[in-house]
């Protein structure tokens, strides 16, 4: 067992532990923070894999964006120190069942997939490579998904503006 493996297990344990905490915790703000730690742990695994770009995007999108949004909604709806009510047993059971099914599905995929080992050295991608791949139209280019997502985000932005905008009549 070398240092790299130890670091992987530490990161995995960190991620899993905080994932379980975030599900089991009855204080909603704490669960949000534990979820954040889980996502940071996943980013750590990406760093461990030398996927720096994906790791950075993981942190920017999930930690800097989504969890902050979740925390904001918690701020606006909950009192500090308040505990959520205990869940019904049936809900707990169905929740556990759903989690188990998802887990089983993932494990099935992992065991069925044959992982091809790459022997040649993979050059670490520069920003130029990532950029040209992202907007490339040839084989393996991501131009279409990129544009589709852009349109989706634009639509979401327009929707936000429409919801947030006051009509002039109401002001008068």
């Amino acid at each position, binding site marked *: 067992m070398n240092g790299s493996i130890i670091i992987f297990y530490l990161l995995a344990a960190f991620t899993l532990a905080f994932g379980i905490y975030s599900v089991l915790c009855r204080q909603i703000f704490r669960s949000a*923070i534990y979820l954040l730690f889980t996502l940071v742990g996943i980013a750590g695994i990406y760093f461990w894999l030398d996927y*720096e770009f994906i790791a*950075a995007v993981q942190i*920017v999108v999930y930690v800097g964006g989504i969890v*902050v949004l979740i925390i904001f909604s918690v701020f606006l709806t909950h009192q500090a120190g308040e505990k959520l009510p205990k869940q019904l047993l049936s809900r707990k059971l169905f929740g556990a069942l759903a989690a188990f099914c998802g887990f089983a599905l993932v494990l099935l995929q992992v065991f069925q997939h044959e992982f091809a080992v790459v022997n040649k050295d993979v050059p670490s991608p520069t920003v130029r490579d990532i950029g040209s791949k992202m907007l490339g139209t040839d084989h393996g280019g991501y131009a279409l998904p990129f544009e589709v997502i852009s349109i989706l985000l634009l639509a979401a932005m327009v929707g936000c503006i429409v919801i947030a905008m006051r009509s002039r009549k109401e002001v008068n």
Partner: protein
Amino acid sequence: MWSFSYIANEIHEWLSKTFNPTWTLIIEMVLAGVAVIGLFAVLGLILVIMERKVSAWIQIRLGPNRVGPKGMMQSMADTVKLMVKEGLTPTGADKIMFNVAPVIAMIVAMLLLAPIAFAKNFQLWDLNIGVLYVSCVSSLMVISILMAGWSSNNKYSLLGAMRSGAQIVSYELSAGLSILTIIVFTGDLQMSKIIASQKTGWWIFKGHIPALIAFITFLIAVTAETNRAPFDLAEAESELTAGFHTEYSGMKFALFFLAEYVNVFIVCAIGATLFLGGWMPFHISTWTGFNHVMDYIPSSIWFFGKTFFLIFVIMWFRWTFPRLRIDQLLNLEWKYLLPISMINLLVATLMAMMGWHF
């Protein structure tokens, strides 16, 4: 001869001769950690006394002048005071979160230090997404503030945290866009390559007006991101007592205080690296004699000189301008800085495509 990179190489060679590679790595990591903590302590001491002296001189005062020669030991005395003070945890607070928040603030500041090049060939981690790493990790800064504000169970803390959340999330955009302007010119995110691209001249001179506009937006946005006046709504003393750290005392408060100053140092170091050439000496393309003279000044002095100049500028902002109201703050970002920096980015892209920069 006695440059930072020389010392680092000597230590590395000695360690690899004496120990096996794993132990060498571990010892080097510990040494780097100790160096970072030492740097933090020294930065805290220097920046606090610098802030107090600069504020005093700007306001025609003397500033601290009792402890030590010309009051230069004042921050030492403050440190001792903060260390021996009791760190209270309020009864209504969420204890774990309350105590973890300042530590997270510190950890984020430490992580941010990794890709900064302090001198020629002297860098902790030259990763290939350097600038993106900085902007992504700095988005974690808001988490510690939100945690502190929520867990204090105090309305002032909560208001301060919400304000600072809104502020940091929105000002990250224009900070990111102004950084992108330089990325468009260099075509690389790696810190060492960005610095190497400024060998013939710093981007603020090479990039014409777009680089200048990007520099100004960057300065404004990072001032807001580090929660400093005129954007210090998160701790607005006159309205919220102290905002998110109202309930903190002793060492926990000191960690927040230190994190603020270290963050100021880091964003200024990033600004110096991107716009003012990092450790690269000042060169004028054809004056070879002048360039040689500039090369004799050590690279670490160039880096720290530029960084401290930017820190001075940010302090100068703080002691000149009055605090903004929250609606003015958001207007400034969404109606002025963001559109301007977007158009600026477009112009810069056009320039980079046409090769109009030097």
